[in-house]
């Protein structure tokens, strides 16, 4: 008897964009897993060609409406590296604050609106609001605050406008910053309670040997720049990224898949960051992590959601520090530039983000190359599914398999628009 089954999970909801997973199973062994990202390709790298260097961040922001800030910051740094522009400390600090607000916003959205309904058993956050009004209110408050920071520093929450080559075009008033600081101080409690809430979720378990990859710096929890490090001892400078990270393309998906040269897939994102840079988290974040029973290295992929809440606590504290210390000088960017090539690695909410450009003599883009966090993770997601499906098949029915796979994919918070700027769950079982 041919015991071939096909499990097809079309449209994983509550992930941003469109994807499906197709799993082929024969006699309870998984023959193949195809993570199909069927969002149409968008060809950003091509249509950046010919545009001026000072438009690049503005255009690449439109790769993703959920993490536009990450693309803006990465594009600015890559172009600046290409054209030989150095920015002052204030610009770096404001960009970090902007990037942190982007991460808080994205994490809160994920934890409350995408993951919590799974664990609390609702189709969505709005339905959840009827039974958990306080939880949803808290989430809205945190997210709103993060957006206010983004808008105050960047001019607008979705697709910021004031961050620019060489510096900022507009600056927040002291009054606004003080208001944000007070709200951040008030938000501490909500953020801590979020960690406690999520720590009580009954997480599924998927532990397999895998490599975590994130940026790292000696004296800070890196998000803006740093060396590329891994749990298997990789230590690479930003400029050497392409020598270590390869990309391949599968016909079943519109996104590209990454692996480490001569090695396998790898995981980027909040779990990788917290695992690799735990010691650099501030005391508040470490304390809540300990209270939540989070021990590094935490190898259960599903716990990425808990790592997000720990990062929220961390970035709220860091934002308070920045705002307390900064004395804004309103200097508009002035710079001279020369043609050249440049690379930037940053930590987006979902993990490692790579932008690279070559700027020609006329000031226009001649080459562009972008690898998003979800593209970095896609191959690893497939490998995770290969590991978890056999376990669920024996124990549970197909519906359960689908549910666990969906939750697994969601634990990565895949950002599909991002991955196909140039990412479907179908499980095929033989039965």
């Amino acid at each position, binding site marked *: 008897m041919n015991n071939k089954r096909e499990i097809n999970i079309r*449209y994983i*909801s*509550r*992930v*941003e*964009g*469109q994807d499906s997973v197709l799993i082929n199973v024969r006699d309870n062994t998984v023959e193949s897993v195809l993570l199909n990202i069927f*969002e*149409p*390709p*968008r*060809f950003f*790298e*091509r*249509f950046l*060609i*010919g*545009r*001026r260097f000072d*438009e690049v961040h*503005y*255009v690449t922001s*439109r*790769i*993703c*409406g*959920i993490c*536009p800030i990450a693309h803006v910051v990465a594009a600015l740094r890559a172009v600046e590296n290409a054209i030989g522009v150095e920015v002052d400390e204030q610009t770096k600090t404001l960009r970090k604050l902007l990037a942190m607000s982007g991460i808080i916003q994205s994490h809160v*959205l994920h934890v409350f*609106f*995408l993951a919590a*309904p799974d664990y609390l058993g609702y*189709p*969505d*956050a*709005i*339905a959840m*609001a009827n039974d958990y009004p306080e939880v949803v209110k808290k989430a*809205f408050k945190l*997210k*709103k605050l993060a*957006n206010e920071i983004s808008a105050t520093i960047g*001019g*607008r*929450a*979705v*697709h910021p*406008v*004031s961050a*620019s080559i060489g510096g900022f*075009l*507009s600056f927040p008033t002291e009054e606004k910053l003080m208001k944000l600081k007070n709200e951040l101080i008030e938000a501490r409690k909500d953020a801590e309670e979020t960690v406690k809430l999520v720590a009580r979720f009954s997480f599924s378990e998927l532990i397999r040997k895998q490599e975590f990859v994130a940026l790292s710096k000696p004296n800070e929890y890196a998000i803006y720049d740093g060396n590329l490090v891994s749990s298997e001892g990789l230590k690479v400078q930003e400029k050497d990224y392409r020598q270590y990270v390869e990309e391949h*393309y599968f*016909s079943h998906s*519109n996104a*590209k898949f990454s692996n480490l040269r001569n090695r396998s897939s790898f995981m980027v994102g909040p779990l990788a960051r917290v695992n690799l840079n735990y010691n650099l988290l501030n005391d508040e974040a470490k304390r809540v992590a300990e209270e939540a029973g989070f021990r590094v290295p935490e190898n259960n992929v599903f716990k990425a959601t808990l790592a997000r809440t720990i990062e929220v606590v961390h970035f709220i504290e860091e934002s308070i520090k920045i705002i307390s210390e900064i004395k804004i000088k309103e200097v*508009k960017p002035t710079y001279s530039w020369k043609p050249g090539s440049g690379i930037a690695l940053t930590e987006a909410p979902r993990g490692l983000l790579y932008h690279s450009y070559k700027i020609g003599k006329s000031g226009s883009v001649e080459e562009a190359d972008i690898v998003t966090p979800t593209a970095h993770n896609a191959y690893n997601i497939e490998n995770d599914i290969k590991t978890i499906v056999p376990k669920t098949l024996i124990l549970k029915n197909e519906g359960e398999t689908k549910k666990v796979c*969906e939750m697994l994919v969601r634990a990565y918070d895949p950002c599909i*628009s991002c991955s196909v700027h*140039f990412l479907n769950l179908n499980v095929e079982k033989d039965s």
Partner: protein
Amino acid sequence: MDNKVKVGIFKLTSCAGCQMVIVHLEDSLLEINKYVSFEYFKMATSKNEEMQPVDIALVEGAVTTSEEVEELKEIRKNSKVLVAIGSCATTGGIPAMKNDTSQVELEKYVYKNLIPLTSVKAYGLNEYVPVDAYLYGCPIEGDEFLQLMANLLAGISPRFPAPSVCKECKIRGNYCLLVQGKKACLGPITRAGCNALCPSNGYPCTGCRGPSLDSNPRSLREILLDKGYSQEEIKKLFKLFNSQVSEFVEV
């Protein structure tokens, strides 16, 4: 409960930024939820199954594949009111930038191994189906979304005034980026409604909301030529968000 107005939010080729503006409405979203039920909101719910008829379909994104053409027609067939949200859906927006390059060249550049992709030129929704209302911008304005919903719920057809961004800039008392800053600002020819967001933050308007009613791109072109911008630069600028808008392209 069951006579709530059914709303579907759909995504074609886009960055999801416009949906995010709606998600970011937070408290207002919960308020709206008293009157409407979101039947399709892929990003926020897991109850999306087969397409059931909705009262209001909000569609984000440009149409860039033959599958999307079919999907859009399906949405049109199953909705009473269809609203295009964001510059991608209204005119093709940023995704339409690819229209100038041949498909093969695009794919060659982005994907080393060429595989057949059913990607077509990118257009706004009205290229394929009748559209009842538009929300402009990249991204849309949250307030305009709320106004649209209030109007639709009250059975009023929504109207958004279309003077130029310049008018809002003057009301805000901004320094003029075009005259004083000598920067190529598209404020004079672009539809207001964003409260001159970009110029107010020191960034010239790039025309994301499309042409204002009295838009005169030819005249702006003359001004920019005078200021030393080349025809080529002006063309690129006009085409950033509006490569499918004839007034902007024909200059």
